[in-house]
């Protein structure tokens, strides 16, 4: 018995790759494309900053009128805001809500798109026509304007409600892709073989079809996150949702409305959240581009 087959023996062959082996393989694939790796590191950094760092960095929320728009110093690396509060501290605390909302919005829109895209493609007929018609309408309405109207009417105060509204705007593009993929996949020989082996509909959808759409789904998920962040920034900057808590977009709102544009001293207060949003978005886009390669099994060894 060779060493290689001994290794296989220890695992359940139907569940390969095992999680750890899969993770190592994933990192190996990512490291082939520097841009993707930088994106991954960037995303992990911001996730750490938003979800872990607040446990270690105490919130500095006290107004200090003696230090309004303070210059960068060791205590305040990016200076202070219009009430003398530390900018870096706000950036650390301002990521969580905006990223959570973006993840939820991307998750909801992906679930909507996969569910209804697959239904449209497999059922066909009138249901397909109806779903497509709704999709086309949703695609043609100017998204930002619709978002502003919805946000102004409902004034969502929780990030969950905001995520639902954002998700309702983002599903159409993925739905069309999923529908097209399912339409083409269901005619493929391997799906026909699965049908003739009587493996069941759930197996065909989740084991034969979805893995072939992984790249579309994951990349849509990431792009949906970036769009959700822009949309949040836009409606919060416009002050359309109740402004509560700490948030990069709320920082922007205050920076603008407190006249930060006109004070040379407040340059860093304005640029802080802008750079945080921009760098996080860039990391997401680069991660998406790196993942494209990972999800192509032909590139695996």
């Amino acid at each position, binding site marked *: 018995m060779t060493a*290689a*087959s001994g290794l*296989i*023996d220890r695992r*359940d*062959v*139907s569940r*390969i790759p095992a999680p750890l082996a899969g993770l190592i393989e994933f990192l190996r694939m990512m490291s082939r494309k520097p841009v993707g790796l930088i994106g991954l590191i960037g995303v992990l950094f911001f996730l750490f900053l938003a979800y872990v760092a607040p446990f270690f960095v105490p919130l500095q929320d006290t107004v200090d009128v003696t230090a309004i728009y303070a210059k960068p110093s060791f205590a305040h690396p990016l200076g202070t805001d219009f009430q003398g509060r530390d900018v870096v501290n706000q950036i650390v605390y301002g990521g969580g809500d905006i990223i959570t909302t973006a993840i939820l919005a991307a998750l909801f829109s992906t679930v909507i798109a996969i569910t209804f895209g697959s239904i449209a493609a497999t059922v066909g007929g009138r249901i397909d026509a109806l779903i497509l018609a709704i999709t086309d309408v949703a695609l043609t309405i100017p998204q930002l304007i619709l978002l502003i109207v919805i946000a102004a009417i409902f004034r969502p105060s929780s990030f969950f409600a905001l995520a639902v509204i954002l998700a309702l705007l983002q599903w159409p593009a993925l739905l069309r892709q999923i529908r097209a993929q399912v339409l083409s996949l269901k005619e*493929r*020989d*391997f799906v*026909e*073989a*699965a*049908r*003739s*082996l*009587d*493996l*069941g509909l759930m*197996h065909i959808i989740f*084991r*034969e079809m979805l*893995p*072939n759409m*992984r790249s579309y789904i994951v990349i849509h998920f990431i792009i949906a996150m970036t769009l959700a962040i822009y949309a949040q920034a836009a409606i919060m900057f416009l002050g359309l949702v109740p402004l509560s808590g700490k948030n990069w977009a709320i920082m922007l709102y205050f920076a603008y409305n407190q006249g930060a544009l006109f004070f040379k001293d407040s340059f860093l207060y304005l640029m802080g959240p802008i750079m945080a949003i921009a760098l996080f978005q860039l990391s997401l886009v680069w991660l998406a581009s790196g993942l494209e390669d990972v999800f192509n*099994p*032909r590139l*695996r060894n």
Partner: protein
Amino acid sequence: MTPPLIQLDGVSRTYTTPAGTITAVDNVSLSLGESETICIVGESGCGKTTTGRMLAGLLQPSSGRLLFEGADVWEKKGKDLARFRRAVQLVHQDPYASLNPTRTVAQALAPPLAKHKKAHGRAARAAMISLLERVGLTPPADFLLKYPHQLSGGQRQRVSIARALTVDPRVIVADEAVSMVDVSIRISLLDLLHNLSTEFHVTTVLITHDLAVARYFARTGRIAVMYLGKVVELAATEPLVSDPAHPYSTALIAAIPEADPTITRSKKRVSLKGAEVPSLLNLPPGCVFHPRCPLSEPGLCDVVVPTLGDLPGGRSVACHVALRERQPAAELLGVR
């Protein structure tokens, strides 16, 4: 008398196209027994793939019936239908499309074993190893974790045969299963399929455009020659190859290249009147082969549609001239 294992009973399949209705398969009857090998031969567009898909129960005939152990398949429901589906497996033409690119060999073989044989873990692994050995992929353990793109065309075709065998099928329909693999490995794939019928009592149907492949594969079985949706000749392989009755079969056999130049030189040349196959949208009247047929008789072949008639030796042919001239003398005397 027990009914044949699987039987096509006068099936036709029509398609409606913007240019009109075409009959891809016209009134084909074929019955197959246990562990038989049969080849369906014909040029592209003759309806052989459609026939194969109807035989595998993947395509519903426009008219006619598909019988499995004497029962109409398209009236089966639920468990009964699922049982039929598993009993007849199709091996697709394109080994690059028939395996899911995102799933390893083990992931392709394990689900049917788990679902239909309750084989999990070690038992599943042992079953997979023995299946891979059976289809000639050795050492089998090396193949379990391979993705389809890491395999050659021939190896993929073997994996799809192994996948079909996971459910212990009674019939395997191999649609052009060797036409997309290298010539050098065709013979071993054909042998593999042939052995399934002799060793494991699986009825194997090979659909091919290549009569040389058919002659090799069905050497102990039968060949059905199709032309424009109809079976024009159905006979045991040996007599069909050595003494074809239908002029179209004669032409096909004459076209098989021979390795020996002396045979090639001495071979009877059959000159068809044309190389053009008529369009299915505009079929000639009478015998569909008459515009190309060297034996065609005006007033008969271009008017009357020939039906499949029996000749001695268990062969049948759809040709007025062949049926008349091959009628045994005794029968002719008897008529007089």
